């Protein structure tokens, strides 16, 4: 009883972690399966087929590539636009500034079903052909909000005296931006871009409405789920997870080394 009381926090923490990671572990585990039926849900026998033959099933790799491509394009455009919006919102006083501030949050608060369907209605009304372009436009729309929120926070946290110091030290407006403001805001912009990419890669609802015949990775999985998801999907999903984990670990390691070297002196 006393043992339980002393370790209750650890036990709950482990339970929560297990709860969080069981689905991912199952996906990864089943990527080494050779399923008996077309549904990969019961363990049958160990096999590396899915890993050695990642693109073995038609549509898997092409949809994966489509999603990556859309993610990159949408992220770059949304990050550039979002960063510029953030600078305008933080640095300039203009008419409608507070309204813009509010409106920029709206896509985050709108249910995806509403946004996806209304965008579809818009594109149909304009007789705009559905496909890659419409999906990218839709993704840019919601990524921008996240970029603005992240970059704005970074900009507001920036000590205004740093830019004043630059101006005082013979840097004109352009040089101040290039050598001081931008390098200091860059980590925020990169973080926003990473977040934006993962949001785009992951998105199903809005994409599904506006994709037409285009098949993104989430749409492919959705379709495959009816007929039985190929093991390759597990392998690719595991791969994405491991990559994301690596990015986080490297970031942690870098900041740990930085902190350590600061403490050392």
């Amino acid at each position, binding site marked *: 009883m006393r043992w339980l009381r002393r370790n209750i926090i650890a036990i709950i923490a482990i339970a929560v972690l297990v709860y969080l990671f069981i689905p991912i572990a199952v996906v990864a585990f089943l990527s080494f399966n050779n399923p008996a039926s077309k549904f990969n849900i019961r363990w049958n026998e160990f096999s590396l087929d899915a890993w050695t033959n990642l693109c073995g099933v038609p549509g898997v790799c092409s949809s994966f590539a489509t999603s990556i491509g859309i993610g990159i394009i949408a992220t770059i455009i949304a990050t550039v636009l979002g960063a510029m919006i953030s600078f305008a919102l933080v640095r300039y006083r203009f008419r409608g500034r507070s309204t813009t501030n509010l409106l920029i949050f709206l896509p985050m608060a709108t249910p995806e079903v509403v946004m996806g369907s209304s965008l579809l209605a818009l594109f149909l009304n304009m007789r705009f052909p559905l496909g890659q372009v419409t999906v990218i436009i839709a993704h840019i729309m919601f990524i921008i909000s996240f970029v603005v929120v992240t970059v704005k926070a970074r900009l507001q946290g920036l*000590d205004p*005296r*740093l830019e*004043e*110091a*630059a*101006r*005082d*030290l*013979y*840097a*004109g407006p352009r*040089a*101040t931006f290039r*050598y*001081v403001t931008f*390098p*200091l805001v860059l980590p925020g912009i990169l973080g926003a871009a990473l977040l934006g990419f993962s949001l785009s890669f992951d998105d199903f609802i809005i994409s599904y409405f506006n994709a037409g015949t285009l098949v993104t990775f989430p749409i492919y999985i959705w379709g495959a789920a009816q007929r039985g998801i190929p093991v390759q999907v597990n392998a690719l999903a595991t791969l994405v997870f491991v990559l994301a984990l690596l990015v986080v670990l490297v970031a942690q390691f870098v900041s740990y080394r930085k902190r350590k*070297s*600061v403490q050392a*002196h």
Partner: protein
Amino acid sequence: MSTAEHRVDDLHLRHLTKRFGETAAVDDLTLTIAAGSFFALLGASGCGKTTTLRMIAGLEDPTSGSIHIGDLDVTNVPPHKRPVNTVFQSYALFPHLDIFENVAFGMRRRGLKDVNGPVMSMLELVELAPLARRKPAQLSGGQQQRVAVARALINRPDVLLLDEPLGALDLKLRRQMQIELKRIQTEVGTTFVHVTHDQEEAMTMADTVAVMNSGRIEQLGHPADIYELPRTAFVANFLGQANLVEAEIVSASAEVVAQAHGNTFTLPGDRNFAKHKQVIVGVRPEKLTVLDHFNAHLVPDSNNRVTGRVTDVSYAGVSTQYVVRTPWEQDFIAFEQNMVVGDRCEVGDEVVLHWSPSHTFGLDGTQDVNAGISAEALEETRAASSLGGE
């Protein structure tokens, strides 16, 4: 770093005014700061000293008035084109650049190619050369402060502005940096304009101190002159401490005689700034001598005197501070050097305070006697006096 090749000019502020809405942060300031001098702008927060500094730097546009360096009008010159550099409060070092690049920043922006030599010799001047490749976050407060000075000075500005540069340091380091800054100033011969709220810092470092209050300069001069002969109650209270008594002038010639609460005070005519009969008679606490009332006959006849009862004695090593309550319920403060061992007055003792007329000053009686004392300090003395009165 020879000063001969680098000609510096006086800095002139003419009718400089800065309004934020209705309030004037700086109000019609006219001032000349001599080339090569160490000038301190002293005042409480909100007195306009930092706004003045920012206008000289070009970071704030004046509402009216002009700023000249020598004959050059820089009033409308943007900050990056002014021959002026600033040491910012809490330094504002660029966190993403190392120490070397921080110091080299100004030279690089001016397109100078050969920065290595000057940067290293500047880092040597502030004794930081071995740390050139560290990031600012890896340095102590005092080291960061020196980088900030080096980063500004390397550009050989006509005027170096220092905005509370020592505010973030602890007391001991602050004393050390005061001496260090003074040494650097003497070495490079640049005009230093130093903004501070610390009166001791201003007095120890500067050749000339300007005491600022609500956007105007109350008094300007050599630290000792201002301290010994303040012209307003604000200066008397803000720069050190003062005992001020509201009195009425009864005769004025080469010697001024004033009366208050049955006491008569005399002071030299040239130390009196009261224009009418109303006067504030003042004296600095260290000019007072404290005598037990049994020894009252020892007071020279010509001296000014006040009787009272000791309500507080604090021993501080080099000196002892007495608080003496007068019959009209005013607290006098007296500092006495601890020349004698033992035989100090104690709380409750009836004493006589006396001082020479030549240490007495007279201020215009129409002003607030408590000007320049912070609201908290006033509250404290009030609380203390209500306790002592019981």
